[in-house]
């Protein structure tokens, strides 16, 4: 049988990463000075459980490293250290190292050993006690890439012990032995697994029946264990009763009977309730013969459950001639006095010497470690199955709703049976109940995909800590609304944009302490991440109380980059818009700090690809707020139905800025063909949807329809439609499943009447539109063009 460890491995990684996140945040909570014992304890536990788990998979890098970390933390929790910033920083680094090792183990890549070693040495330099090598099961190191589990091996026999016939064991338990939960019968059974065992009980200490304390151990034993075994193996059996008994283990000489007190009779150990040994022995090849196992000891390690050739003749004859005295093996735990029972029964007069003691080892476990395990535990890169943890309340909700659904169904069933018009009301009620159930079910299933934003926010304490140290700034991070839930996909895709915005706030927003003092602010800047629900959307705000965005600087840069003319007087909104232009913020910096991988244009593109939007508000010397609006989920969208002729199209509500009746006097014609609409300070190109889609419209007169101002990919455009219909939640269906991608269409949905309506992709429409109208825009409109 193969134990499929892949799943356990996966779980180990998930758990370890989660634990490291906790360890990190606990480290960040640690205050300088005396130890907060509870906190250090929980940090300690992380290193401890990673070490323990890693041991199962023989991940040596992490075992060793976690061991050093654990040792230092152990010293800390014993209050041998004071918490200092360097100590916290080092432990934070060790979190990073452990993450790195785990990641490379998970992905099967190489570990940067130098870095591990560096950090390990630093950790060791903090240690007060020298480090001991962590315990590894009896075998020498295996490389970390070889994640197979090695079967237990029995230590080689000392050549001097080779000559030994076996061991004589004098075992005198203290009366209290049973109170530790240990039971001599179990020890004997273990011994019998090693070789032929003769048991000579000594019952002299048993008091009279009335004085008998059933939970006291009155017996002692002398045992002969035949077989060439190292002494350590025998000692190991008694490891747990050490200190609860007198134990003597001496080599067994050839003439063993002389060693035994004459009044003792040996007892053979055979399982109870097995009347016919012959049947038992021939029936199962899973049984392990003691003789066979003892001889095979030298040659090969025993694997439990491996079929072993069984010799039966001797046992057969002996069992037939005289039934052996049996000790019940399966005596229940409620009855720890089993040996007394055994002693009170008549001891057979004929001393039985069983040369071979056969103990059917009914191993119900096929060995968990057979060869097929190797293939299972080997790294499978494609097994990167992502999973989410779902709260039990969400599952319970689902079960409840399904329960209701079943009730509704059976109710409808009843109505359906000999249906007549009198049951119409019941039918209608049933159907509306069904509708409610379905809606609830849909909502609940969606909720399963939702994760709290804390998954994303939790990394920021560390990031802010590291960055503020690096930048020499003092920053207080405030997180709120961390339980706000987002779709898993949205959450994942928001991760990078959020990091960028937080870094921006620290880089460019919050000033160094001195400068803050100069403008009369407290030395410590505030960075606030806030998530909340607003009208079916998720809002995330990243606000700082830093220097704010200097619009004049932006204007100068824009002129320098020829995005605007010096005589242009762009609005604030238009200037903020420039931040999101590709190449604007990263190519030339508003502040002196170097740029990073992604620019604000990428941030906005990511957010838009999720159907969201971002805007910025800033006050010089007061601070900046970035507001991100995101849809709750990607499978459903809040749609605005619009009509063009006979056709119904759907626009995402998020893309709509406003809709208005067209005033003909505000429509201008550029280059004699391209229509633009003057909306306040903006010129918005007009896209006649009927024209682009070649459908017969209700009207071609601009003043008789509506202009829906939409925004896509940073550009605004006015869609001319006949009328707006209802707003509703729609389920997005792919066109690509059976057809293909069509530009300007992001998908389709099925309306209440069963007909199909297309969902418009505003960015695609704008591209399509620009492709059609190759117009040259006069100078006066160039600024607008650049911004839209």
């Amino acid at each position, binding site marked *: 049988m193969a134990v499929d460890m892949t799943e356990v491995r996966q779980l180990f990684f998930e758990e370890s990463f989660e634990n490291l996140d906790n360890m990190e945040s606990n480290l960040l909570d640690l205050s300088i000075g005396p130890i907060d014992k509870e906190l250090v304890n929980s940090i300690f536990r992380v290193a401890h459980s990673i070490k323990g788990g890693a041991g199962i998979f023989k991940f040596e890098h992490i075992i060793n490293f976690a061991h050093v970390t654990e040792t230092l933390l152990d010293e800390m929790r014993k209050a041998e250290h004071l918490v200092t910033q360097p100590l916290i920083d080092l432990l934070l680094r060790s979190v990073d190292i452990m993450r790195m090792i785990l990641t490379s183990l998970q992905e099967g890549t190489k570990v940067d050993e130098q870095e591990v070693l560096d950090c390990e040495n630093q950790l060791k330099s903090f240690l007060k006690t020298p480090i001991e090598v962590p315990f590894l099961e009896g075998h020498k190191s295996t490389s970390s890439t070889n994640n197979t589990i090695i079967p237990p091996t029995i230590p080689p026999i000392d050549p001097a012990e080779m000559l030994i016939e076996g061991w004589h064991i004098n075992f005198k338990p203290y009366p209290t032995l049973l109170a530790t939960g240990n039971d001599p019968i179990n020890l004997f059974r273990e011994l019998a697994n090693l070789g032929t065992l003769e048991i000579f009980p000594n019952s002299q200490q048993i008091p009279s029946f009335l004085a008998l304390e059933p939970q006291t151990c009155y017996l002692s034993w002398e045992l002969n264990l035949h077989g060439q075994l190292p002494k350590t193996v025998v000692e190991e059996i008694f490891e747990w009763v050490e200190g609860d008994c007198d134990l003597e283990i001496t080599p067994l000489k050839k003439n063993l009977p002389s060693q035994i007190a004459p009044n003792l009779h040996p007892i053979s150990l055979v399982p109870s309730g097995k009347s016919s040994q012959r049947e038992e022995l021939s029936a199962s090849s899973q049984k392990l013969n003691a003789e066979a196992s003892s001889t095979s000891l030298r040659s090969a390690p025993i694997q439990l459950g491996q079929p072993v050739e069984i010799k039966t003749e001797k046992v057969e004859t002996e069992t037939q001639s005289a039934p052996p005295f049996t000790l019940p093996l399966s005596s229940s735990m409620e009855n720890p006095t089993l040996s007394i029972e055994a002693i009170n029964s008549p001891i057979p007069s004929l001393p039985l010497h069983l040369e071979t003691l056969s103990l059917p080892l009914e191993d119900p476990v096929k060995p968990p470690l057979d060869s097929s395990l190797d293939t299972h535990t080997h790294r499978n890169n494609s097994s990167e199955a992502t999973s989410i943890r779902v709260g039990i309340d969400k599952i319970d909700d689902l079960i409840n709703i399904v329960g209701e659904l079943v009730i509704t169904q059976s109710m409808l069933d009843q109505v359906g049976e000999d249906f007549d018009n009198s049951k119409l009301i019941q039918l209608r009620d049933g159907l509306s109940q069904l509708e409610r159930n379905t809606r609830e079910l849909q909502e609940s299933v969606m909720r399963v995909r939702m994760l709290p934003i804390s998954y994303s926010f939790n990394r920021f304490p560390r990031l802010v800590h590291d960055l503020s140290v690096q930048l020499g700034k003092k920053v207080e991070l405030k997180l709120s609304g961390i339980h706000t839930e987002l779709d898993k996909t949205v959450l994942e895709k928001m991760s990078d944009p959020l990091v960028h915005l937080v870094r921006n706030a620290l880089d460019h927003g919050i000033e160094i302490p001195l400068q803050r003092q100069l403008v009369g602010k407290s030395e410590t800047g505030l960075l606030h991440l806030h998530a909340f629900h607003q009208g079916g959307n998720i809002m995330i705000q990243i606000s700082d109380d830093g220097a704010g965005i200097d619009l004049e600087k932006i204007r100068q840069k824009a002129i320098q980059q020829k995005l605007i003319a010096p005589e242009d007087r762009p609005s604030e909104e238009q200037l903020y818009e420039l931040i999101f232009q590709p190449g604007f913020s990263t190519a030339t910096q508003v502040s002196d700090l170097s740029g990073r991988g992604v620019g604000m244009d990428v941030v906005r593109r990511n957010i838009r690809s999720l159907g969201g939007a971002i805007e910025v508000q800033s006050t010089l010397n007061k601070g900046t707020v970035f507001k991100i609006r995101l849809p709750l989920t990607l499978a459903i969208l809040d749609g605005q139905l619009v009509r063009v002729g006979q056709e119904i199209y759907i626009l995402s509500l998020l893309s709509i800025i406003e809709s208005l009746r067209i005033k003909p006097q505000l429509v201008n014609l550029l280059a004699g063909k391209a229509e633009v609409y003057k909306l306040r300070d903006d010129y918005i190109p007009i896209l006649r949807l009927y024209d682009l*889609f070649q459908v017969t419209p209700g009207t071609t007169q601009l003043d008789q329809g509506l202009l829906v101002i939409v925004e896509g990919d940073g550009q605004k455009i006015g869609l001319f439609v006949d009328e707006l219909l209802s707003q509703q939640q729609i389920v997005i269906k792919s066109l690509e*499943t059976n057809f293909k991608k069509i530009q300007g269409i992001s998908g389709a949905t099925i309306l209440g009447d069963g007909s199909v309506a297309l969902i418009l992709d505003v960015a695609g429409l704008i591209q399509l539109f620009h492709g059609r109208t190759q117009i040259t825009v006069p100078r006066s409109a160039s600024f607008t063009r650049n911004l839209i």
Partner: protein
Amino acid sequence: MTQEVTTVSNKYLTFVLATEEYAVDILRVQEIKGWSKVTPIPNTPDYICGVINLRGTIVPIIDLRLRFGLPCLEYGPMTVIVVLRVISNQRERIMGIVVDAVSDVYDVIETEIKPPPDFGSVISIEFVKGLVTVDEKMVIILDIDRLLNSNELAIVEPLTH
């Protein structure tokens, strides 16, 4: 053996389009349904009528008359849509074709299918699997995978596929 090979036959569904009778492998036919409102898709060739909702999935509808350059008929209650399973780039797509009328189901012995002559038919021989004579009528067997993956119907798979 040879005797057996010659008797291998498959069932074909035939339909009429203008004056000619066409056949498709019946195993590819998912269902035959009447006309229902089709949502047109902008900026696609006229032979792509649009999409319909087939039990929750969006299925494109192709007018075969228009695809073959024949004058189109008005759609109405008599219009028939044959819903087919088309293999495209190793995946299955469900598509509907509009035909004049469904005619019959024939057993066609594979060996009796003749290669298409390069005759002046309305359709390009590239979409014809062969010709077969049934009851002294000529039936054109269509290669629907080719036909419904041609031109605008082709899937442009990303290169990374």
